[in-house]
């Protein structure tokens, strides 16, 4: 257990995982919709507050997993309840706990039927999502990974839009088929190593062929989740039909699971395959960036526009990961957080307008700037953040990724640039509609205090990460260094093998 720094005293990680679940259980017995809303708000807020002590207690000088918990679960199969976080998962856990209260606030009036069930789904989602980022045992990881599917399916299928059945089934089938491949990979690794412990699977000398196959299985599972081009078609459907909170969770956190999977599994467990297949994934990322950009430019539905922009943005993240250098990886992880903040905020914005106009069409919102100035100010800032305007969060991440691209391969770097231009184009188009074109909607009311309170924290993060990203980057350095070292060790070991007579 030398990879784990055990937690002394209060079991922080387990609390974060099980508090929402316990909250969901209590919710079963609570009467009254407002009581249920307030209870969920309290639970998610308390979780967020507790999770903050992870940041303050985090030791950024070590690459080991911290706040570790290790309990035997199914001894006969060597399955343990192992939890721990490092720099890579810390920020994602915080993002999750931080986004959830905002989701609850964002659905306060949006959800009018089956409020209790909706809130239960949200809380179970939180348990699963937080757990996925903390799990260090592959079976535990897989159970939580699959556990996310059901509440998400329900969120879309019960509270979704007109084509909710189509969208939810498509989402379910896509993700499930990816998960099956993940299960195959897990079993293959177990048969080889005899353990389900994720850190113990790293740094083993699997044969080249095995690495390739395991990598491909991983890749399919995670690429569907990201989603990478050409596995992205479930995303726009799911986003468009999902309720606001569903879209926010999907965009801010679920998509990050895919890229988190690349970082946690592909790179350290199958480094040789990563090295040999990485270049192809770079080009796939470029395809995603360009495809997402062009498609977003053609949308008239605001949610679809943002959904396709996600494809492009996540393309930047995978681009940063597979250059396998420090700037790229740190940029990619930061960009995951940025995308969570910005795209989550944009979906919240669209949801707020949908509540008023019952439309997501750009044309129905043309010229509303004169009627809802506060809303439009928020939308403008988040759109600028989405197009990586300097001094906003996305710029820092995108710049790091571009810098790593230009230091490794100028052609791929150059190929990503049109993606940046397209991001500006589709976001400016959105803004042009909302700010100017058309007569405006005098019947619309501007944001109320609750809605402002939902968006304001995200606004703070847009500028905080944009102007002073050091607190966010500093926790990454050691973990990213260690990750790169794992890949390098495999690389030099392979070279040594080749050199042997």
């Amino acid at each position, binding site marked *: 257990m030398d990879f784990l720094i055990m937690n002394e005293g209060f079991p922080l990680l387990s609390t974060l995982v099980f508090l929402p679940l316990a909250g969901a259980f209590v919710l079963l017995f609570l009467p009254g919709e407002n009581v249920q809303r307030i209870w969920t708000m309290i639970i998610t807020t308390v979780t967020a507050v507790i999770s903050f002590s992870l940041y303050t207690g985090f030791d950024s000088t070590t690459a080991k997993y911290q706040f570790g918990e290790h309990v035997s679960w199914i001894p006969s199969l060597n399955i343990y309840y192992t939890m721990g976080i490092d720099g890579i998962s810390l920020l994602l856990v915080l993002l999750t706990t931080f986004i959830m209260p905002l989701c609850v606030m964002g659905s306060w009036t949006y959800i009018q039927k089956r409020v209790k069930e909706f809130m239960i789904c949200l809380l179970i989602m939180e348990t699963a999502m937080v757990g996925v980022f903390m799990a260090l045992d592959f079976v535990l990881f897989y159970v939580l990974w699959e556990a996310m599917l059901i509440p998400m399916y329900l969120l879309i299928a019960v509270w979704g839009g007109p084509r909710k059945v189509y969208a939810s089934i498509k989402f379910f089938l896509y993700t499930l088929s990816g998960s099956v491949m993940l299960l195959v990979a897990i079993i293959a690794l177990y048969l080889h190593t005899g353990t389900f412990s994720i850190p113990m699977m790293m740094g083993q000398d699997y044969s080249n062929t095995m690495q390739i196959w395991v990598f491909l299985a991983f890749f399919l599972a995670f690429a569907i989740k990201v989603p990478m081009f050409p596995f992205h078609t479930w995303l726009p459907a799911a986003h468009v039909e999902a309720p606001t909170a569903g879209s926010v969770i999907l965009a801010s956190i679920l998509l990050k699971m895919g890229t988190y999977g690349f970082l946690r599994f592909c790179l350290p467990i199958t480094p040789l395959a990563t090295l040999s297949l990485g270049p192809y994934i770079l080009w796939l990322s470029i395809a995603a960036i360009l495809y997402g950009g062009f498609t977003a430019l053609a949308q008239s539905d605001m949610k679809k526009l943002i959904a396709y922009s996600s494809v492009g943005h996540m393309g930047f993240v995978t681009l940063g990961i597979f250059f396998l250098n420090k700037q790229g990886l740190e940029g990619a992880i930061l960009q995951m957080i940025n995308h969570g903040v910005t795209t989550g905020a944009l979906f919240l914005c669209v949801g707020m307008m949908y509540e008023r106009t019952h439309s997501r069409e750009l044309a129905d919102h043309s010229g509303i700037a004169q009627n809802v100035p506060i809303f439009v100010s928020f939308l403008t800032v988040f759109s600028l953040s989405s197009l990586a*305007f300097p001094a906003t969060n996305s710029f820092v991440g995108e710049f790091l990724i571009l810098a790593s691209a230009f230091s490794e391969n100028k052609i791929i770097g150059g190929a990503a640039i049109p993606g940046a231009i397209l991001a*500006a184009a589709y976001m400016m188009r959105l803004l042009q509609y909302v700010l100017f074109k058309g007569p405006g909607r005098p019947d619309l009311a501007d944001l109320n205090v609750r809605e402002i309170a939902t968006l304001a924290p995200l606004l703070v993060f847009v500028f905080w990460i944009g102007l002073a990203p050091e607190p966010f980057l500093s926790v990454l350095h050691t973990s990213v260094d260690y990750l790169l070292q794992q890949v390098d060790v495999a690389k030099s070991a392979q070279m040594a093998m080749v050199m042997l007579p």
Partner: protein
Amino acid sequence: MEIVNAVNSDIVTSTKIVWALVVPLIGAICVSMTGKKPNLRESISVISAVILCSTVLTMVSPVLDGKIFYYQLFKILPGITVTLRADAFSMIFALVASSLWVIAAFYSMGYMRGLHEHAQTRFNTCFAIAIFGAIGVAFSDNLFTMYLFYEIVSVCTYPLVAHHQDEEGYEGAKKYIVYLTTTAKGLLLPALAIIYVMTGTLDFPYNIQDGMFAADANGAIVTMLFIFCLFGFAKNGLMPVHHWLPGAMVAPTPVSALLHAVAVVKVGVFSTTRMMLYGFGTDTMSALNLGIPTAYFVGFTIVMASVIALTKDNLKARLAYSTVSQLSYIMLGVCLLTPHGIAGGLIHISNHAFSKITLFFCAGAIYVATRKKNISEMSGLAKTMPFTFGAFAIASLSMIGAPPVAGFVTKWELLVGTIESGSFGIILVLLASTLLNVAYFAPVTYKAFFGKRPEGEPYEGIKEAPLSMVIPLCTCCFISVIIGIYPNFFMNLVKAVIG
């Protein structure tokens, strides 16, 4: 105040520079909140303009004494910060932008009220933010800060261009934003990333010789970066990325005047020349032989834009192409890489600003008084609008480069610089452009003073525009003459840049 380090001059950390930057921003916020009360709103505009201008003025004499004001606001990444710096070069542009904001604030009050324009609060707010961006560019200590404020100017002037909210406005605004963001994202962003990868920082050095690149840097890449920067700062109006400028002339005249003759286009030229002198440095530029070929290239823009200007009957369109041509004078001067050439280029930042804003103010005054946009309809108008057309005549002399108006100083320095550099083709460019300037400006004045009103269009009802427009335009015209006769005020700053 603490002294950071000493190069040739003292670098002083001072919050004064931050105040200068935030005054227009605070002004913008106050303006947007007082939209319901026009008088209060416009007073705030004027007051912030005056505060900004006086703050900048107090910085002039320390800078002339060799001090450099410096303040680091944010640290983004190692080597990338948001940092402000006021050196002699910054002061040239900051002075021009801040002093003309005062004048333009009065003028736009007259113009916008005279025409009963809509959305004046939005107009004033965006105007102030644009000045904030321009001052930010002037005070940028590194390429990232410059890029940041450059983009702020692009975004916040978009509503100004689209102000009329009709088809023509949207078309112009679309062209405007497409040209500016595409070049910024497509050329500047990769340039920033590549420079950061190559040098590990984006900070400008403190003299115009060294540049940011090591002596053994790959020449081909540096040349490529140079081209990226030349076209990336598309606000400089260089052909072929100049189309946005004539398109943006659909904006109300105060916008065309301050932003498209001064703030926006000068942001482009200032950024380009800052990058040439401080980013690449004269040493690198001459080592890679980037100077004279670029001078010929911008020479093409000078001549070509003047030829196009000849064909335009719409006065603002003619002025727009004249701007395209005149902006390239600034870059041409710097590309000569001789002391007089650089001096001629840099002094033209202020000379062109004061003269061109006069011309635009005149165009606006003519429009408010007569609703006439085309030159062919302006015959004989000078009889009833002597001040406006008198100012126009004097300012166009400055554009032509006749003594004693400001433009003459530029022409003189540029000619000396050209002879120093020994490239006589450039002299032909300057001569051709001067003749073309005469050809497209002289008819306007001639027709106005000596032409006859067309049949059926009497003088009745036509008089000078409101005083709040005539006084600003006469003031600008007066300053154009003053800095032509006493060029030393700006020349001292230019000399401090050259060292």
